[in-house]
């Protein structure tokens, strides 16, 4: 390949490296859109071979300086994050360099600026996408630099055989990557990410509707979202593939005609929250995944206890405190990407509420309410007086007479009346609201519950997807306490994900979790745990033990696994070393003699000169009338015979030849 083609290839590789680092920054979503547009244009021009700044280097620098002042002015005034401003400027510098005269030093500047971008992106996001960008940046940048290096000794019009060069460079890149990964795994990790400004929930964002208020109206695609938001190990272990249970998130007590909200006051943070009697409870070990995007704890109906929680933050796993907010919810006090905690629930003993003031508040109707709602409730309740019976009737009617739909475009004045009398269709929040408000018109205290319905077994755990988000009603019966009613027709409960998308998303979630646990949140403690488990595997590493989440008892067995791993690592290192050094793998037996001979010569102060070898040495010694000329000649001769003449050297002969060099002068 000739000069022009080589140059084009080198610049393409460089531009791709820059594009990779830009992608890492852009995917964090923090970069101002105009910077993205400018860089995109620069990339396009550069790939098209247009370099307008080649002729006007001074002007581009002036423009760049102006932009720098602008960006840092924005940062100074607090309108732009300082890191974002720096990254934006690095992006612009990269673009400017890409459009300048394409010399090797410009290439290096582009790659250096891209490296800065990569660093900035690490501070902005730690997503798995970042890993991919980092990988492709590494590969492209190495190849581009390799081309630059190869370029050096080549004449202008000389043809360059691309395939062998690229093969060598690629081997180098692969080795560098392997080395980087080994370094990452083996080198003790320090908590380096002090910036701690990573966005939590991944590329797709937090997806649940778990907010502190529920606003009626609008539809959404949440029902089809298959992202896993929660994973739970349940003890005792249920047998069902589909759990079909309510997972309680939070309660809402106040409705203003448009939206539900909670009015409870947060209590002091503490490590555990007890909501009821936890005896004979179902124990759940729950992980809230980054896709959950909220700090509200979730538990199977009815949660009685939330246990010690651990927040997975950028600097490792931290114990987190819990805050109880009225009787609405329990949430985690500290910010993190994901959380794990223990919840205990009892489905047999409903909770009771004794405070009449609280119950009174739960009968409160919105200030403006369509009179038809109350009429309908009265008509439907008929003769029933028991709150549970009324609720059952209303629930049945709503289920049987109204449609479930997610297509609810536009905002309406009174969503409840619209749902009940105009469209006669809505989603779970509408059904829950209708039931709750109608019951309140009948004097039954109610509250709306936000959470999930479902749970699907994946290996030994149950997963809950964003599409499982649901809302239902709890009505208070003086006889039985809080009773759950769900007015939503059966087809509106649970998620309805498309199977293929669910599978793809599952794979993505798994990958992302691996990335988080093994890379982003991989800490010194994890390394230590890994090593410890290697050395002393749990005595009984069976499934049950893992399920019970007990700390494995230190075993006294011999660390077979550790020995095997060390052996395997040793062999791997040896093989690689042999491959790299090459020659020594086929070491000739006589070569050892040569090594010994040279060492002996060194001892007796006979040194080889520059460019001289053992074959030429005797000749010089003879000319110099050196006292060792003759023994050296014999040794050299014998070495050559053994090495190239096919006459092997016996041990005793070898020793004799060596000894002759140190023997007294007169012998």
């Amino acid at each position: 390949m000739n000069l022009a083609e080589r140059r084009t290839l080198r610049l393409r590789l460089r531009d791709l490296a820059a594009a990779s680092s830009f992608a890492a920054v852009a995917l964090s979503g923090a970069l101002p859109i105009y910077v993205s547009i400018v860089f995109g244009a620069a990339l396009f021009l550069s790939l098209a071979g247009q370099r307008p700044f080649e002729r006007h280097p001074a002007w581009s620098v002036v423009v760049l300086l102006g932009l720098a002042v602008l960006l840092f002015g924005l940062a100074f005034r607090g309108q732009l994050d300082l890191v974002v401003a720096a990254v934006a400027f690095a992006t612009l510098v990269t673009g400017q360099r890409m459009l300048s005269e394409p010399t090797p030093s410009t290439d290096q500047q582009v790659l250096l600026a891209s490296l800065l971008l990569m660093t900035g992106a690490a501070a902005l996001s730690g997503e798995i996408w970042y890993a991919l960008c980092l990988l492709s940046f590494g590969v492209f940048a190495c190849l581009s630099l390799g081309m630059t290096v190869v370029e050096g000794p080549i004449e202008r019009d000389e043809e360059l055989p691309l395939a062998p060069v690229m093969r060598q460079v690629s081997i180098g890149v692969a080795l560098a990557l392997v080395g980087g990964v080994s370094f990452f795994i083996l080198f003790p990790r320090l908590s380096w990410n002090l910036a701690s400004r990573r966005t939590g929930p991944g590329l797709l964002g937090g997806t649940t509707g778990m907010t502190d208020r529920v606003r009626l109206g609008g539809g959404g695609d949440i029902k089809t979202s298959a992202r896993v938001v929660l994973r739970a190990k349940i003890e005792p272990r249920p047998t069902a593939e589909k759990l079909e249970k309510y997972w309680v998130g939070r309660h809402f007590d106040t409705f203003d005609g448009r939206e539900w909200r909670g009015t409870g006051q947060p209590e002091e943070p503490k490590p555990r929250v007890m909501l009821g009697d936890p005896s004979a409870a179902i124990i759940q070990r729950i992980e809230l995944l980054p896709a959950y995007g909220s700090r509200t704890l979730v538990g199977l109906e009815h949660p009685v206890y939330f246990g010690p929680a651990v927040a997975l933050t950028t600097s490792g796993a931290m114990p987190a405190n819990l805050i109880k907010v009225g009787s609405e919810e329990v949430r985690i006090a500290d910010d993190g990407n994901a959380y794990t905690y223990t919840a205990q629930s009892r489905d047999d003993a409903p909770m009771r509420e004794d405070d009449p003031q609280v119950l009174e508040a739960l009968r409160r109707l919105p200030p403006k309410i369509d009179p038809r709602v109350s009429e309908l409730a009265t008509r439907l309740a008929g003769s029933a007086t028991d709150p549970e019976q009324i609720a059952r009737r209303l629930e049945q009617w709503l289920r049987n007479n109204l449609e479930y739909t997610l297509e609810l475009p536009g905002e309406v004045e009174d969503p409840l009346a619209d749902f009940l009398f105009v469209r006669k269709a809505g989603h779970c929040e509408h059904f829950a609201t209708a039931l709750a408000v109608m019951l309140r018109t009948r004097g039954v205290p109610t509250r709306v519950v936000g959470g999930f319905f479902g749970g699907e077994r994946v290996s030994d755990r149950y997963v809950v997807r964003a599409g499982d988000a649901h809302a239902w009603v709890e009505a208070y019966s003086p006889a039985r306490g809080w009773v759950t009613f769900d007015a939503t027709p059966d087809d509106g409960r649970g998620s309805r994900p498309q199977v293929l998308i669910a599978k793809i998303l599952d794979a993505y979630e798994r990958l992302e979790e691996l990335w988080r646990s093994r890379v982003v949140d991989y800490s010194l403690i994890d390394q230590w745990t890994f090593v410890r488990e290697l050395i002393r595997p749990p005595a009984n590493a069976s499934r049950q033990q893992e399920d019970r989440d007990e700390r494995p008892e230190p075993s006294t067995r011999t660390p077979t696994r550790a020995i095997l791993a060390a052996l395997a690592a040793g062999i791997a290192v040896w093989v690689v070393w042999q491959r790299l050094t090459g020659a020594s793998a086929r070491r000739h037996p006589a070569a050892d003699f040569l090594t010994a001979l040279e060492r002996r010569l060194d001892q007796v102060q006979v040194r080889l000169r520059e460019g001289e070898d053992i074959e030429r040495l005797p000749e010089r010694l003879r000319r110099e009338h050196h006292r060792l000329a003759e023994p050296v000649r014999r040794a050299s001769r014998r070495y050559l015979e053994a090495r190239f003449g096919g006459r092997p050297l016996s041990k005793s002969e070898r020793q004799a030849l060596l000894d002759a060099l140190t023997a007294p002068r007169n012998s």
Partner: protein
Amino acid sequence: MPLINPPDLLQRLQHHLGLLVLGKSEQVKLALTSLVARGHLLLEDVPGVGKTTLAEGLARCFSMSFARVQFTADLLPSDILGAQVFLQAKGQFEFRPGPMFHQLVLADELNRAPPRTQSALLEAMSQGQVTLDGVTHQLPAPFAVIATQNPLDLAGTYPLPDSQLDRFLLRISLGHLAPEVETQLLMSRRADPLAGFKPLADAADLVALQAAADAVQISKDVAEYAVRIAAATRAHAEIERGISTRAVLSLMSAARAIALWEGRDFVTPGDVKLIAVPALSHRLLLKSSAQGTFARDEAAHLVGELLRKVPAPR
């Protein structure tokens, strides 16, 4: 075949020739090596440094028949190979062998002859036979050509094509004498130095030496070393065209002959190093357009550089 002791005979021959060609023991050694390796020798040097003396001395040493051909611009192939001559008495044509039909032929100023004549000579060199009018005449054995070239005086010459340079096993140059040697020469030299020069061996001894050289072994490592050197010449930035496989073969046969000097029956990397410059430098086509002495020095320099770069087996 006579029983010979190769290192001893070679040392004696070198010493003997050293009496004739003063102060050039290295070149004498290489010239003898070339003969032992069944090669042809290219002497590239300015006139008057003893090229002819060396050639004729070599022939005398081995009691070989010797002919000298002065190559000129009007020299024809038949002038060197021989021709069919009509014999009046017998009434038929008869082949008259030319000077080529000697055991050692000195082709003086080879590059002065036109290409046609050059190639006639070169065919004889490579085939060891001459074909004229459809009849093939075997050349005497052992047979060797020593050609000389004047590297400076290039006017009116036909430089040898690379393919033909390739047929010479070694290229050496004698160079001027050291002052003290020159003084000694002036004081001791009689009318004709060759007049009293006695043979030391005969052609059969040379054949025996050649057979001994054939028996020298080459280990795989040394062969790989030679191949690495060849590959390095092909990859070098300043070399337009590296050496051919024939050139590597020549290098190894010269190395075999060199090994005999040490009485070895195997080739060492040192042998290859020793012979590489005279065996390879004339076969390289350089990128620079330098000619004459300068190109020669540059090529020798490049080969030396490669020898330093290419790691020898140890």
